């Protein structure tokens, strides 16, 4: 019977909006870039693992870095990035991208790059975490030496963050136990991100790169429930 041979589709092409990290190259020297990448990766290895990136070459478009594009791509892969394409640059760059197996994306339209909120899970070596549409929820204690990163959203820790542990999020961080380690919110540029905790004993807190260490905290806030927000170029830590 001919009808039994109903064709089952094996492929579908669909348009989807995805958030991708853009790596802006600001120096035309491969060595300088490699050194800086190593430094960043060392700081937060799990942050970058298998992170798809687009290379924004606008700032170095006039240099001859495009000759090294394939090498640069390999260098990123060796550090466990997944380079998917380039953005910006002229004909030379487009040719080099094609030769290196990279896609070419149209140049930036809104340079502010409105922070989108896609959620992904974090570090596999950390406690079990559930990533939901609303962010990431961690129910186990985050212990010394562990690192949890909520990429693209908020992080909620139901238990304590021990001294020597580190939690990071692109959005807010809520900690319902005591915060004894480090908490870094808004790590990819969200200046509106905040940190909330029930008992404040942190070693370091940071919002969008502006940080403060325990030596600088007011004694009166120690052990208290606090919220931390960015106020200009300093942190505003106040009791809840």
């Amino acid at each position: 019977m001919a009808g039994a041979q109903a064709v089952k589709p094996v492929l579908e092409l669909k348009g989807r909006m995805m958030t991708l990290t853009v790596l802006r190259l600001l120096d035309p020297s491969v060595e300088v870039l490699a050194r800086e990448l190593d430094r960043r990766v060392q700081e937060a290895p799990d942050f970058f693992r298998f992170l798809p990136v687009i290379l924004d070459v606008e700032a170095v478009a006039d240099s001859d870095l495009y000759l090294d594009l394939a090498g640069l791509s390999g260098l990123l892969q060796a550090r466990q990035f997944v380079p998917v394409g380039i953005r910006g640059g002229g004909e030379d760059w487009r040719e080099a991208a094609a030769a290196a197996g990279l896609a070419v994306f149209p140049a930036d339209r809104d340079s502010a790059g409105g922070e989108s909120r896609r959620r992904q899970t974090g570090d596999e070596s950390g406690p079990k975490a559930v990533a939901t549409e609303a962010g990431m929820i961690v129910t186990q204690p985050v212990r010394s030496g562990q690192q949890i990163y909520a990429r693209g959203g908020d992080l909620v820790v139901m238990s304590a963050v021990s001294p020597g542990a580190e939690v990071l999020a692109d959005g807010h961080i809520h900690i319902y136990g005591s915060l004894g380690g480090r908490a870094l919110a808004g790590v990819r540029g969200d200046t509106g991100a905040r940190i909330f905790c029930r008992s404040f004993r942190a070693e370091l807190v940071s919002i969008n790169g502006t940080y403060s260490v325990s030596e600088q905290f007011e004694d009166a806030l120690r052990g208290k429930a606090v919220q931390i927000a960015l106020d200009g170029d300093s942190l505003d830590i106040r009791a809840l």
Partner: protein
Amino acid sequence: MAKIVVVTSGKGGVGKTTTSAAIGAGLAKAGHRTVLVDFDVGLRNLDLIMGCERRVVYDFINVIHEEASLNQALIRDKRVDNLFILAASQTRDKDALTEEGVERVLTELSKDFDYIICDSPAGIERGALLAMYYADEAIIVTNPEVSSVRDSDRVLGILASKTRRAANGDPPVREQLLLTRYSPQRVQKGEMLSVEDVKEILAIDLLGVIPESQAVLNASNAGVPVILEEDSDAGQAYQDSVARFLGEDRPHRFLQLEKKGLFGRLFGG
């Protein structure tokens, strides 16, 4: 199938080997076939604490490298029935421990024993990681001071992520805290963390509190597991801990400052 219990801490010198010996002897006395395995290759101590150092012919590494059979290497304790010791090698280092070798030995031991107590070396390197990898239960030995507590916290994180149970997605390793060298007097003076402090930081069940005691040192020097010193405070505290480990509900003792006698009143603060 045996239960595999790792005695671990991160920090050195907190009482892991003393605890392994005491808990092992306690379980054996309660009628369970128990074997103590010393994972501290290169710095073997368990045989000293157990008083069998002069009877070690073959060790754990010999068995792993199939230079001796388990039966040849297992040392039977002379005081307690059902208790056996598998000594570490003094002449090798931790690289001599292989994952497959350890698994094979533990699997073989599992057939004959109810409990396998793995005495972990300090640190979080190979020896310690292998000692905890196959564990079903963990006893975290901690002294009431900040560096010990932090190291224990680190070890708890590793137990939750780098064990066979974690790798297979099985129920997690059961973790219990044993607070050792506890001195209520020093806690009162603010020189030591209290039981409550440590419990709050580590957030795991409390198996027992072992008081700081001369009996521990005496027993170690004599090569006797301190739990067999039944009149000593530390021995009794270990007995309580073993009973709790086996599911009994016992109140914690030795947490309060003892009432001072005449001597204490004359010389105490």
